């Protein structure tokens, strides 16, 4: 029996195997079985039309759903020193994006640095934001909670020798809730997709001595990524830690 499907014959093994099985089961009904298979696949959605890819370009202030999060990109700015954040070089500047973020997943998300990426800015030191702060109190945070929309500031450090961006494109990243093909667990998976893009003019805030409308994590209200993912992750934002009780 094995000899019948040996690789010494012509044609691929799988094709010969499949034909062999079909011939054994129903030599004259091959077509019927093919039609049956297509019909069964239709029952599970095999015949549904693929939804057209949504237009990824949006305007500022539009809600963009990325799966576990929904983002309204509001403004993009550049600034020089923004304590307590520390630049690697005095010459460098902060490029930052202000956005309303809503967690639409059913639980809090800590890996929020994955939400945004920038395009069209040269000389960024990191691909993901260097840090994030809550606009509410200018504290450095990571974790956001379901259905609690917060205005969040995402910071990237730009090399001072790179050209000052006049406009930039914010990419809202997408995640898909699906089964991991290795562990078979359903979770929010990164399929390298972008939920939407927003192109914005960049407001130069470097001259402003005290940018009132801009995030300015004040030194008195200390900023520290408290619990997670790891406090040591931001060694440069060294500041006295905010303790529950001194």
């Amino acid at each position, binding site marked *: 029996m094995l000899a019948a499907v040996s690789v010494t014959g012509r044609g691929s093994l799988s094709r010969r195997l499949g034909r062999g099985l079909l011939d*054994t*089961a*129903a030599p*004259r*009904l091959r077509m019927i*079985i093919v039609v049956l298979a297509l019909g069964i696949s239709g029952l599970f959605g095999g015949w549904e039309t693929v939804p057209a890819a949504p237009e990824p370009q949006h305007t500022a202030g539009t809600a963009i759903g990325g799966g576990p999060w929904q983002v309204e990109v509001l403004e993009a700015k550049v600034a020089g020193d923004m304590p307590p954040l520390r630049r690697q070089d005095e010459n460098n500047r902060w490029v930052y994006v202000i956005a309303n973020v809503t967690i639409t997943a*059913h*639980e*809090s998300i*800590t890996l929020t640095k994955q939400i945004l990426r920038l395009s069209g800015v040269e000389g960024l030191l990191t691909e993901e934001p260097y840090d994030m702060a*809550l606009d*509410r*109190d200018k*504290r450095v*945070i*990571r*974790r956001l*909670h*379901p*259905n*609690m*929309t*917060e205005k969040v500031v995402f910071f990237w450090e730009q090399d001072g020798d790179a050209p000052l961006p006049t406009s930039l494109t914010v990419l809202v990243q997408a995640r898909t809730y699906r*089964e991991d093909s290795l*562990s*078979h*667990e*359903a*979770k929010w998976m990164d399929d390298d997709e972008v939920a939407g893009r927003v192109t914005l003019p960049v407001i130069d805030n470097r001259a402003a001595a005290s940018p009132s409308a801009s995030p300015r994590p004040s030194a*008195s*209200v*200390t900023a*520290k*990524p*408290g*619990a*997670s993912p790891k*406090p040591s992750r931001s060694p440069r934002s060294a500041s006295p*830690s*905010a*303790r*529950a*009780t*001194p």
Partner: protein
Amino acid sequence: MSLLRRLGAALFVIAVLAAGHALTTALPDRNQQLRAFPATGEFGTDVTAREFTVRVGAVRCAAELKIGTAILTTQGVWIVVKLRLTARSQVTSIQYAAIRDAEGRVYEVTDRFEQTLVAGGRRLQPGIAVEGEIALEVPATSTGTLTLLLASTFVDHRMDSMAEIPLPIGDVRAALDNPASTEVLAPRVAK
């Protein structure tokens, strides 16, 4: 072999595949199979998980927190929970604390200030109870029972125990009428 026998064999294979498919879909999915084992207990009593024992001593809601000199506002409501934690036979630390609402949404402990008691920082030595408070944010629209979740695992809670304690909170909105900010008790060895 007659055509009938061949067809019968093919039908048998299809039937086995269908039965297998029915069985795998009827069984709980992977997430359900690997979920944490709940160690459920009541407010004010000792609830024992695999590595630690926890007692929720008090719970209150607040509109603002006072952390050092800083005032932390919230768009929702702060839930401040007083915990008494004891490691059982080995040193452990609590790395996960959250509140689950009636709809199943899970609000993890805030990282807007350092909370060493439940963010892995405080190591619990066996038999030595440590008490302190933790603060979490939930939407002001939260209704129904809020349940505190505690685990010694950080992100991977699969097949480990998780303490689940329903909190006796009525209307979380009531806290918003009181503008006074509240302080959060730092961890210390319980008397």
